[in-house]
């Protein structure tokens, strides 16, 4: 057991899988010699060498194409897209090629590959380096979408993603890189599609993802002091989605709040809300409420970005008001 930061959990997860499986290779911009612009991949080049840990030119299409082609014939590539915003310059490879290959070829080709990216806001990077793109990825049939909220989950879910036979978009919360927790030694392998209850309570269910999980927990702690008990569910992956855990929780509490970092329109919370409405409408005791970033490009200034992103205070206030009405 030792303290592990979310940042160092990335290299630990990759190293764990590269040690056990020679077919795992890792490529991206500044990932090898520099150890990653977020210092998430330090030490990998030294341990595994330049054949398996590769720096690339600033060429996102080439990076993902190389990962895809290599996955077709037996490698298990991990590709890094430095900021998730940059998916926009290589979205063809993601949406038209990687996501569709297994289906379109009648199962002749599978693509065991992981695309990691630093996702979301909170660091004042402005509109082109702060987007939370989980809803882009979720909208494409053929992509798994994973977003860990803790250092331990980074290791375990990354391992599960690398071992998965199909493509996974792995979204790391750049605002959480500095967060640390005690994590046990030894191999950690988790399971995709398993939500986790991180706070217990019977008055309402708050469903959150990635960096919204600690904010939802802080809100739940604040509300608990007022006697409002919320269950906080960390979804951990959007695809596969653990609908069973969500439905069981909402059936028990009667109220659902989603906390999404992605912009409001077509955010993942709308999908969760639709599933709950269709499946257990009769168990709801009040309207479903979505707490999201507004449908705007993210501003850079501290005060404005803070206002745009869901905060613990906004979550707590929204729940408090909704339950009181």
């Amino acid at each position: 057991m030792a303290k592990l930061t979310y940042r160092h959990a990335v290299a630990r997860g990759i190293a764990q899988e590269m040690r056990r499986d020679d077919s795992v290779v890792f490529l991206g911009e500044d990932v090898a010699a520099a150890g990653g612009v977020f210092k998430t991949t330090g030490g990998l080049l030294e341990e595994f060498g330049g054949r398996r840990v590769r720096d690339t030119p600033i060429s996102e299409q080439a990076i993902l194409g190389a990962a895809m082609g290599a996955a077709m014939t037996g490698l298990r590539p991990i590709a890094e897209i430095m900021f998730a915003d940059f998916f926009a310059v290589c979205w063809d490879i993601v949406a038209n090629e990687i996501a569709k290959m297994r289906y379109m070829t009648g199962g002749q080709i599978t693509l065991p590959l992981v695309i990691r990216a630093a996702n979301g806001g909170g660091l004042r990077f402005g509109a082109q380096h702060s987007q939370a793109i989980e809803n882009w990825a979720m909208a494409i049939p053929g992509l798994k979408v994973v977003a860990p909220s803790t250092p331990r989950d980074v290791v375990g879910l990354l391992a599960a993603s690398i071992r998965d036979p199909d493509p996974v978009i792995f979204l790391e919360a750049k605002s959480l890189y500095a967060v640390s927790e005690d994590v046990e030694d030894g191999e950690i392998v988790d399971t995709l599609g398993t939500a986790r209850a991180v706070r217990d309570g019977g008055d309402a269910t708050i469903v959150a993802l990635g960096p919204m999980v600690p904010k939802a927990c802080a809100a739940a702690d604040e509300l608990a002091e007022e006697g409002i008990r919320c269950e906080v569910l960390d979804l951990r992956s959007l695809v596969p989605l653990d609908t069973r855990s969500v439905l069981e929780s909402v059936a028990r509490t009667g109220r659902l709040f989603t906390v999404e970092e992605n912009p409001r329109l077509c955010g993942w919370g709308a999908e969760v809300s639709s599933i709950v409405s269709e499946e257990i409408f009769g168990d709801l005791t009040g309207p479903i409420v979505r707490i999201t970033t507004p449908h705007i490009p993210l501003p850079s200034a501290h005060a404005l970005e803070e206002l745009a992103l869901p905060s613990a205070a906004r979550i707590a206030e929204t729940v408090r008001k909704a339950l009181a009405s």
Partner: protein
Amino acid sequence: MDYPERWEIDDDPSLDEAALLEMLRAMLEIRGLEDEIQRAFTKDLVRGSTHLCTGQEAAVVGACSVLRTTDSMVCTYRGHGAVLAKGASLAATFAEIVGRETGLCGGKGGSMHLTDAGVGAYGSFAIVGAHLPIANGLALAARQQGSDAVSLCFFGDGSTNIGAFHESLNLAAVWSLPVIFFCENNLYGEYTAWRATARVDRLADRAGSYGMPGVRIDGNDVIAVRRATGQAVERARAGEGPTLIEAVTYRHRGHSRTDPAKYRPDGELERWLKVDPIRRLENLLATRGVSPERLQEITAAARDAVRDAVEEALSAAPPRLEALYEDVYA
């Protein structure tokens, strides 16, 4: 500038008659199947679109003739010929295009998405330029696994103006990947003449920007195509990196089935029909002493093979409805 300098094609004494006849067979079968596909679409046997490679057979057949099954090949939506040249069956190819269960991809791919992984045909791609980066990945995997397999990537002149082309050639050069970037310059990117979209004299010159050799060849000369590709493959297998080949050829038909190609200058098609790659190879065989009867036999055999394949494909069942949800994981 783009038209072949001579009608006759040079012989290559290192190729025996069997090798030449094999290339002729492959070209005739592709020509025959494309004619059947056009017929199938005009009879509304299938919907959607189709992009025929009629006239460009020497490029795909000549290039694939130097590959092994373990070498990979990716191509474009104008890829029926390339997939056949790599070894896919006529019947399964046609069945895929007409949406049958016995198609290469069980009917889920269609005309623009033919894949036969068993013969190293890792897909025809319908987004212009999208597969060039993927060809690099196939080459990277081969390298990483200690194999001397190479990756052959067909694309059109139109692809050379898209970003992925530049990213891919650069990365392939930087990593010395065993890739052969094979540009079939058929003079038109969709409906627009290639010289209206580029200011270089030869697309092959673009190789210089990436530090790799670039060669321009007569793409209607199957022997020249085979020789140039063979040299590029040799370089790639030896670890000397990628090559760009520009094979100048001509699309006998329009861009897609709905395009009558009225943008072509008067007489251009007729001029290029004179340098039909199949006629030129037949002429070479005749000069080698192959009898007209033997050539007719081969033509007839190709015609029969295509007819049988079409019958077989059309008699196959459409995909089972349960297939809609097969190979779904997310």
